[in-house]
C-alpha cells in the first residue's frame, strides 16, 4: 500500500511545486514543499519524508549538494529532476546518491509510478533464507541489515533492494534489463546507467577493495552476479 506516503518536493518554481503537490495529493499522499536546498534540509529534519523529489537546478545549494547532504543522514529514496537525459547530470546525480531520475517536463503519473517502484518492499525471501552468507558478507533481508567483516554497512533502500535481488539467486547472472525491471520497475527502455552507478555505489560499501570486487562481479557481456 502506498497510502500516506510523505513526499518532499524541492523545486524553486512555485507553480510547478503547487501543481505537482495537487497531483500527488490526488494519489492520497502528503506533500511537503521546499523552494530551496536550505529550506529542504530544515523541513526534512522536522518531517522526515518517505521520498524526496529534487530539481537539480536550485538557487543556493544545488540539487547534487542537497542530495549528498540528505544521504549523510538518511537512506530515503531520492528522485532527481534533470533537464536532459543525455548529460553528465544524470550520472553525477546518481553518484551524489539519487535513486532514480526524471526529465522535465514529466507527467505526475510517471513520477507517482517511479515513487511506487522505489518504495516497493524487498520481496520476502524463501523460508530458511533469513540469513544469507557470501563469505565475509552477510545479508539479513527481513531486518534490512548487511554486515561486512562483522560491521554493519549502511545501504540506501535501493542499494539494499538491488543487493537482495542479486542475493535471491546466488551465483546467477542478472542482466541489466532484469535488474532495471526488478529494482526500478522499468521496461526495455530503462536507462542502464541506473544499474551501473548503483552497482558502483554498492561496491563502495560491500567490497573490501571496491576496485577489485569479489562479491558483486561483472559478467562481461551478460550482466552482474553476487558471489562469495
Amino acid at each position, binding site marked *: 500500500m502506498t497510502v500516506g506516503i510523505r513526499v518532499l518536493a524541492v523545486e524553486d*518554481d512555485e*507553480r*510547478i511545486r*503547487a*501543481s*505537482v503537490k*495537487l*497531483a500527488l495529493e*490526488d494519489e492520497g499522499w502528503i506533500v511537503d514543499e521546499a523552494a530551496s536546498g536550505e529550506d529542504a534540509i530544515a523541513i526534512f529534519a522536522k518531517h522526515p519524508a518517505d521520498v524526496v523529489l529534487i530539481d537539480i537546478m536550485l538557487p543556493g545549494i544545488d540539487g547534487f549538494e542537497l542530495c549528498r547532504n540528505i544521504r549523510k543522514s538518511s537512506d530515503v529514496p531520492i528522485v532527481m529532476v534533470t*533537464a*536532459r*537525459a*543525455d*548529460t553528465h547530470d544524470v550520472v553525477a546525480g546518481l553518484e551524489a546518491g539519487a535513486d532514480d531520475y526524471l526529465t*522535465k*517536463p*514529466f*507527467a*505526475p*503519473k510517471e513520477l507517482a509510478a517511479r515513487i511506487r517502484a522505489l518504495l516497493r518492499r524487498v520481496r520476502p525471501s524463501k523460508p530458511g533464507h533469513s540469513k544469507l552468507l557470501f563469505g565475509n558478507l552477510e545479508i539479513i533481508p527481513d531486518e534490512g541489515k548487511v554486515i561486512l567483516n562483522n560491521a554493519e554497512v549502511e545501504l540506501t533502500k535501493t542499494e539494499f533492494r538491488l543487493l537482495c535481488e542479486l542475493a535471491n539467486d546466488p551465483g546467477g547472472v542478472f*542482466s*541489466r534489463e532484469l535488474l532495471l525491471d526488478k529494482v526500478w520497475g522499468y*521496461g*526495455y*527502455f530503462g*536507462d*542502464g*546507467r541506473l544499474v*551501473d552507478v548503483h552497482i558502483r555505489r554498492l561496491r563502495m560499501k560491500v567490497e573490501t577493495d571496491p576496485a577489485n570486487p569479489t562479491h558483486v562481479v561483472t559478467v*562481461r*557481456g*551478460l*550482466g552482474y552476479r553476487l558471489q562469495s
Partner: protein
Amino acid sequence: MTDIFSDKPDARYRLTRTRKLIRTSVHRLRPRRIGLRNRILLIFVAGALLLSSVLALVTYSFTRSNLVDQRVSTETNQAITNARRTQNDLLRSPKEILIALDQGGSAHRIIYIDNTWTGSSPLFSRQMIPPALLQRVQRDQKAASMIVDSLKGQALVVGIPLPRINAMYFEYDNLREVRDALQSVRLALALAAIITTFVGIALGVFASRRAVRPLANAAQAARAIADGRLETRLEPTDDPDMQALTSAFNDMVTTLQERVERDARFTSDVSHELRSPLMTLAASVQVLESRRDDLPERSQAALDLLSSDVARFQGLVEDLLEISRFDAGAIRLVLEPLSLFEFIKQAVSVSSLPRTEIRCDDIAALVAIRGDKRRLARVIANLLDNARIHSGGKPKIVIQLADDESPPTNVWIVVEDDGDGLIEGEFIKIFERFSRGGAAGRRAGTEGAGLGLALAREHVTLHRGRIWAENRTDGIRGARFIVELPIDTTQTHDEHTHE
C-alpha cells in the same frame, strides 16, 4: 480584295522572331567564359610562343645574312687568288687552261680569253653568268659577285677581269655549306622554340595552379561550412593580396557562426523556458482529468481538448529541444549493443501503433547494432506516426540485410504503408523541418508538428546511417521509409560497454 493590314501582325511577328534569332546567334557567337586557370595558362603559352618565334626569326635572319656575307667574302677572296694564279699560269702556257681551272673543291670555273669561253665543268656555262655581272666585269673591268638562283638553290657567281691577258675569270660555287648550316640553325631554333613553348606551358600550369590555390582552399572551406562545420577557417597567409580575401572570409564565417549559434541558443532557451509552464500545465490537467466525471459535459469537452493539446505541445517542445541540441552539436548518444529484432519489437510496443506487423528473416534476426535505444525508438515511433497520420495507411515493418555482402555491413529497417504514397518532389522535402508533405496537407493532420521526420533523419545520421523515402515498388500503392544502419560486427549484441 485583301486587306493590306492583314499581314501586319505577321510582319511584326517575323521581326520579333528575327530579333530573337539574332540575339541567340550573337549569344552563341560570344565565346564561352574561360576559367581563370585556363586564362593564365593561355597567356603563358601565347607569350612563350610569341617570344620564342620572334627570337627564332631574328636569330635566323642575323645568322643567315652573316653566314652569306662571310661566305661571299671568302668566296670572292678565293676567286681573286684563283684568278691571279690562273693569269700567271696562262702567261706561261695557254694549254694549261684546263689544268689551271681544275683546282678541286666544289667550285666550277670558266675563263673568257681570246673570245673563247673555256670551262672546267659542264655544270657551269656561259649562259649561267647573269648579264649584269658580265657587263660589270667586261665593261667596267671590275671584280664583282652576285647570288643567283639555280636548280639546286642559291649559288654565288664571282667575276674578275684579268686585264693583263685581256681575259675574264668567273667562278661559280653553290652555297650548299651555307644552306646546310642554315638548315641546322633552323632546326636548332625550331627545337628551341618548341622547348620554350613547353616550358611556357609548364610555367603556366604551375603559375595558374598557384594562382587559384587560395581560391580552391576558399572553395573547400566554403563547402565545409555549408556542410555545417562552422569552425572551419582559412589559414592566415603572408600574401598581402590574399590576406584581404582570407580575413574577409574568416570574418564572414565568424559572423555566420555567431548567428547560427545565437539562433540555436534562442530555440534552446525558448524551449527551456516553455518547459516549466508546460510542467505546470501537464500536472494541472492531470488533476482535472482525475475529476473529469464530476464536470459538466461542455467542460469535459474543453478538458479533452486542453489535455490533448498539452500533450501535443509537450511533444513539440521536446522535439524543438532535441533539434536545437542537434544544431548546437550537443547530442551525446548513449550507445549500447542492441539485438535489432528485439529492439524493434520493443520500440513498436511503446509506439502509437503497438500492433504493427514486423517481418524479419532468420538472418536479419541475428543482426546486432550499436545504438542509443531511446533515440532509435523515437525514429521508429516517428516513422510509424508518419505512416499513421500523413499516409493514412497501415504500416508494416520489414527488417532485412541491405546487401548480399559477406559479412553483411548494413541492415535496413523498412517502414512501409499502403497509403497514397509520395508525389515527385516530396521524397527529400518531407525530411525538412516543419514540412508536412502533400498528403498531410490533404488530410489536414492535426497531430505532429512536422519535426518527426527531420528528427528521425538527424538521429539516423548521428548513428552513421541513412534514411530515405520512396514509393513502394512491389505493385502496392504506398510509401516506404528505409533506415539503413551499420551492423555491429565487433561484439555480441548483449555486451554492455557504455559504462
